């Protein structure tokens, strides 16, 4: 795949900034890499990736680290605030300046503050990739999720997608909703009222001609879905403990909850899971989440390669 003007030097701060053909370009790039394994190895030799994780992360950090290393990049930075200058109170602004001085070719940033990635992109000429900021967005996870759907169905158009769990504070859900809004899909948000999708997300979806449905229980829609995207409801997000106990069972995905589902249904989950997704799904045809997780590495390789203009 050749370097693309759509990606060269660009920032990745929100899934809402990407258009359909750009997502498709990425998906085809990952498909190609999976067919021609090793074809991008060493493509960015000599470049430096600064992985600045102001919030701890294992999975996303590792996948970016391995992706960069397979591309031949040198990797610097930190996987969490502990032990870094962040605990001494260094700002995002100053940290970026410092790593710019060290010659970083790309920043991969995770931060607890919402909008941190956009701010970083504004103050730095070096491309910034968000690895999640606050509870708003996680754009590269949405790209991974989109690829998992594409891989399962060979298309995204025409699918009925249910997104379940903590949609209000779950950063992967909003990014995926933005990404899906570029396609002809039917979206249903399944969550208790307190955790329903944020208004700005539904607002943008409507502007793009996608009117999401809202449901409070999986049971009422399970039979119609092609894709079920599961996220965890965190106890601390629901102020009333009795309300949490009441609702949590309604959002647990197990064989019983999927009794009326289509045999072709695919269940996705950004992982890690706790008890919202039963292990009894693992060995069924519904389970797409391990395929989804495995897509994280090639997708991030393709993305880095497109942004930094590596070898085709």
């Amino acid at each position, binding site marked *: 795949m050749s370097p693309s003007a759509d990606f060269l030097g660009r920032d990745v701060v929100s899934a809402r900034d990407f258009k359909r053909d750009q997502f498709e370009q990425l998906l085809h790039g990952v498909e190609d890499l999976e067919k021609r394994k090793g074809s991008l190895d060493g493509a960015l030799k000599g470049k430096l990736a600064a992985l600045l994780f102001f919030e701890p992360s294992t999975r996303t950090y590792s996948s970016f680290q391995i992706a960069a290393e397979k591309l031949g990049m040198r990797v610097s930075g930190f996987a969490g605030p502990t032990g870094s200058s962040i605990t001494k*109170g260094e700002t*995002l*602004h100053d940290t970026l300046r410092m790593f710019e001085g060290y010659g970083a070719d790309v920043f991969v940033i995770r931060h607890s*503050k919402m*909008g941190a990635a956009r*701010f970083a992109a504004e*103050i730095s000429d070096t491309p910034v990739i968000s690895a999640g900021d606050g509870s*708003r967005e996680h754009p590269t996870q949405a790209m991974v999720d989109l690829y998992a759907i594409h891989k399962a169905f060979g298309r995204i158009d025409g699918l009925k997608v249910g997104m379940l769990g903590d949609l209000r504070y779950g950063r992967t859900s909003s990014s995926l909703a933005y990404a899906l809004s570029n396609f002809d899909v039917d979206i249903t948000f399944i969550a208790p009222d307190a955790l329903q999708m944020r208004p*700005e997300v539904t607002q943008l979806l409507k502007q793009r001609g996608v009117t999401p449905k809202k449901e409070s229980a999986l049971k009422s829609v399970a039979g119609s879905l092609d894709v079920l995207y599961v996220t965890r409801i965190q106890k601390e997000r629901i102020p009333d403990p009795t309300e949490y106990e009441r609702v949590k069972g309604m959002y647990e995905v197990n064989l019983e909850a999927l009794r009326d589902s289509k045999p072709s249904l695919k269940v996705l989950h950004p992982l890690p899971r706790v008890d919202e997704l039963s292990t009894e799904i693992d060995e069924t045809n519904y389970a797409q989440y391990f395929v989804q997780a495995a897509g994280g590495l090639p997708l991030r390789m393709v993305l880095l390669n497109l942004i930094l203009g590596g070898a085709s």
Partner: protein
Amino acid sequence: MPDESERMLVSRIEEGTVIDHIPDWRANTVSRVLRMDKLARMQADVSVAILQNVTSKSFGRKDIVKIDKWHVDEKDADILCLVFPNITVNYIDEGKVSKYEPKVPDTIEGRIRCPELNCISNTEREPVLPRFNTLKKERLLQCHYCDALLAFDSVPEYVRT
């Protein structure tokens, strides 16, 4: 031509700003948006007359704010018009009146804080100013950084002091 009740209460000003056609009993919100408390902190030589519930030919009742020896910033007047779309602003220089028609701006920077406490623009030590884009049809502001929405009517609660 001022209404009778207004003429009874306050004399003409030679230099300053008159904000007219404020909905009745809402003048305090105007003070808040214009951050008039800072005038007191600055110990500025400014007098403010707030007229409430005066009669108006076209509005029935309205409020008026007259500020002697202070020109309200046009950008602040524009923010006022998010909340009160019908207000009129008159600047007075040496007794001559010139009208300013406030307009809903496309972007607002530095004057309103984001309603999302965890937004990067609410982080004290980062060199970042809050910035909003306006969604005029929906009467909403959207944070440039975190996308949070703020209704025009809620703007006075979030004016930066």
